[in-house]
């Protein structure tokens, strides 16, 4: 019965790296290699930006270590024009959708080429052209906005869809409920993803889950099809995404998906998990490293080798390092340059009202 999928775990890759079971997707060899490269790129990007923050080049950074498969596979399963409403941990969507890394770095550095003109904290990207909605600092508000976007798209008779993303901790926020409810009532083409990485800063996932065995079960309460998927299994993520996207495009309405994964790193550069979780917690995690698991699958299929892998890692690292150099030419947070302070007064309103013009003058910028 459909309801039971919310209480099981969909997996495709087995312990030997074989793709098995009813959910094994059709996917080309090239797509698999691309998937691996996407994930390596995210990891390399995260590593460099975490370092850049430590070096004092910016104020803040958040990595997706250990969770790369979810955003990377999901992005590749969707189409251009679909809109993601992400959290701060879905940089994989941007990278898999081809957004130039240097653009992202410009945002991290709040430099002169930052598309957001230095207004937002690092990682609060907005990339409309890459299907990436502006990230809000307040958790969960994007989730119901994704539903609104899907409703609008349906009104226009378009077959695009939108995807709401949320961390398992943030499912506790009320806007998660608003989104599930509106999705349940209007049945627009939206996919509601829950990334259960088992931690919300210092809180275990059980705090937000309560007495329910899974997060996917929340969907059951709304009569929505709900899946629970191994989020460190690139193929399972890809398959679930394709399934939900097809349903949405066929007019069958929303799907809720819980992706089980593990936040291997700290919550952010402001956080030190050693104060609240055992040091070896991350090693004990049974779902494995999503990069290793996909790599093993490729090697098992004879379409990848350890050498090609090492080479890919090295190439990607150079690519990211190059991008970083280029971005730093445009400035870094503490050393500048930045956009003009006058931009601070722009875009608050479409046209600057008198009181803001007076304030800008007072600011002398």
């Amino acid at each position, binding site marked *: 019965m459909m309801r039971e999928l919310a209480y099981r775990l969909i997996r495709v890759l087995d312990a030997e790296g074989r793709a098995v079971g009813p959910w094994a997707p059709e996917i080309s060899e090239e797509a698999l290699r691309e998937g691996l490269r996407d994930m390596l790129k995210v990891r390399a990007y995260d590593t460099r930006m975490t370092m850049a923050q430590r070096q004092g080049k910016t104020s803040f950074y958040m990595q997706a270590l250990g969770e790369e498969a979810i955003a990377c596979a999901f992005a590749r399963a969707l189409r251009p024009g679909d809109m993601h409403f992400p959290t701060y941990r879905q940089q994989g969507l941007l990278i898999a959708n081809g957004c130039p890394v240097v653009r992202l770095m410009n945002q991290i550095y709040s430099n002169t080429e930052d598309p*957001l003109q230095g207004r937002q904290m690092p990682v609060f990207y*907005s990339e*409309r052209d890459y299907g990436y909605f502006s990230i809000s600092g*307040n958790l969960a508000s994007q989730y119901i*906005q994704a539903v609104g976007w899907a409703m609008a798209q349906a*009104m226009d008779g378009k077959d695009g869809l939108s995807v709401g993303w949320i961390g398992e901790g943030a499912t506790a926020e009320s*806007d998660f409920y608003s989104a599930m409810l509106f999705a349940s009532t209007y049945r627009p083409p939206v996919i509601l993803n829950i990334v259960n990485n088992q931690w919300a800063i210092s809180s275990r996932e059980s705090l937000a889950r309560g007495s329910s065995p899974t997060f996917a079960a929340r969907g059951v309460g709304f009569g929505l099809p709900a899946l629970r998927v191994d989020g460190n299994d690139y193929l399972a993520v890809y398959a679930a995404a394709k399934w939900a996207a097809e349903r949405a495009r066929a007019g069958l309405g929303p799907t809720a998906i819980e992706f089980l994964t593990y936040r291997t790193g700290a919550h952010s550069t402001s956080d030190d998990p050693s104060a609240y979780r055992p040091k070896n917690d991350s090693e004990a995690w049974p779902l494995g490293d999503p990069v290793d698991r996909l790599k093993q699958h490729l090697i098992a299929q004879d379409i990848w080798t350890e050498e090609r892998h090492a080479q890919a890692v090295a190439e990607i690292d150079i690519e990211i390092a190059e991008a970083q150099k280029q971005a730093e030419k445009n400035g870094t947070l503490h050393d500048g340059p930045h956009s003009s302070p006058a931009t601070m007064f722009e875009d608050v309103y*479409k046209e600057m009202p008198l009181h803001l013009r007076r304030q800008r003058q007072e600011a002398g910028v």
Partner: protein
Amino acid sequence: MARMTMIQAIRSAMDVAMARDDNVVVFGEDVGFFGGVFRCTQGLQEKYGKHRCFDTPINESGIVGAAVGMAAYGKRPCVEIQFADYMYPGYDQLVQDAARMRYRSGGQFESPLVVRMPTGGGIFGGVNHSQSPEALFAHVAGLKTVIPSNPYDAKGLLIASIEDEDPVMFLEPKRLYNGPFDGHHDRPVTPWSKHALGEVPEDYYTVPLGKAAIRREGAEVTMLVYGTMVYVAEAAAEEAGVDAEIIDLRTLLPLDMEAIEKSVQKTGRCVIVHEATRTCGYGAELAAIVAENCFYHLESPVVRVTGWDTPYPHAHEWDYFPGPARVGAALKKVMEKA
């Protein structure tokens, strides 16, 4: 031209806007089939279909949040919150998302949406059906706040708000829906059909945001008012025999600062009236602006007449409401101290 109540004028504004632009969508609690508890959306679902005008579950954050998503996509949602008192659950979406969308996305996404909500007291609505939260909007950079005082303005301002590229909080003084009300609750109610501003074009027109209207020219004192208080000010000035210049602000943000400054520089006195609680109410901002920008012209202290800093009571509604007696006393006070 037709005779319209404020309800009819508001309905006509949405009708005109929906006819001109397919992207305009109207939704909220009970607004679809029923046409809203105040009937402002009556007939729109029948005319434009269930995709353009529909009911929502009772979830204000969901209503605003869905509107933010639709607006970012390219729609122009005009949503109703059943009473302004019930906007609080949607406030996070307004402040953190709608108000900041263009800014935080470097202009990639916008929030051209309107939130209509009946506001103010005078209908025995008690604590939870009488509130005037305009200051809570005006404090938020990125929001615009509009409060019409008559059918003509209501229609023109609402069309302008729907066409505006920014999120507009559109507060409808519910005590004015059916006629002007000067605070003399013991007298018969005048209907809009007897008021010049109840004459409303049936077609498209706009009243621009950010422009105040001088309801009465005068030399002795400037009265800064909006919504229901326009009529209270008129009554009070007449009864007190003071030659007041009555400025109906119409838009609180952007504010027509120039009109205010010009008037106070002329009269040298200023009385501010609103129904919201006093502390940190919109009157505080007006008083501060006048004190900052017209200081050398002022002949007596600016006086605020407002709702008291208490919840809005039921039985003591008329002791709470800033009616003509209290406003008249303020006028005398600013004149006295000349």
